[in-house]
């Protein structure tokens, strides 16, 4: 492969991860034990909706912690990706959850049990 899309291996890792898994949450800590209140809120919302997701702990690696911010041009963590698209951070996810929009969106994507 000569046509490397980016020069940043961390961005490649992120792109591969969000391509491989339909719902990915980049977070502080792991879903079973979040290490930040904002990450914990998004985990709770996803659990509540019954969405299957993969949690990626950004605290395991400084390059990842910085790389996820430049990947999405978004300065904070958590970050939720659905089918490769950046959906938002804690505020947006919470707002979408409260309005019912998140449930509808995930259902439309076929990511919730009927």
């Amino acid at each position, binding site marked *: 492969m000569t046509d490397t899309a980016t020069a940043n291996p961390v961005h490649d890792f992120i792109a591969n991860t969000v391509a491989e898994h339909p719902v990915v949450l980049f977070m502080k800590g792991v879903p079973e034990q979040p290490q930040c209140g904002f990450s914990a809120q998004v985990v709770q919302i996803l659990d509540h909706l019954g969405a299957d997701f993969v949690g990626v702990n950004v605290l395991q690696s400084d390059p990842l912690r910085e790389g996820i911010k430049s990947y999405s*041009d978004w300065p904070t963590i958590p970050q939720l990706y659905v089918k490769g698209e950046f959906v938002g951070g804690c505020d*947006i996810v919470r707002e979408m959850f409260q309005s019912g929009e998140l449930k509808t969106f995930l259902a439309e994507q076929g990511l919730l049990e009927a």
Partner: protein
Amino acid sequence: MPIAQPDLEAILREGFPDAEIRIEDLAGDGDHYKARIVSKAFAGLPRVRQHQLVYAALKGRMGGELHALALETAAPT
């Protein structure tokens, strides 16, 4: 390093001169704020883009000096 509420408001005001801006200091520690910004600049933009505009106005302070800023953005109705 926390940011004083008037400073935060001034920074946001500079980025969104036309906006209605309401800031709450959630924890009283100058480090956990909530801001509601209503500006024409947000019209027609998805929420991610709206928040990105706010982060751009904060010029790199978000996630650094400013630990927590809960955002609520909207265009005037």
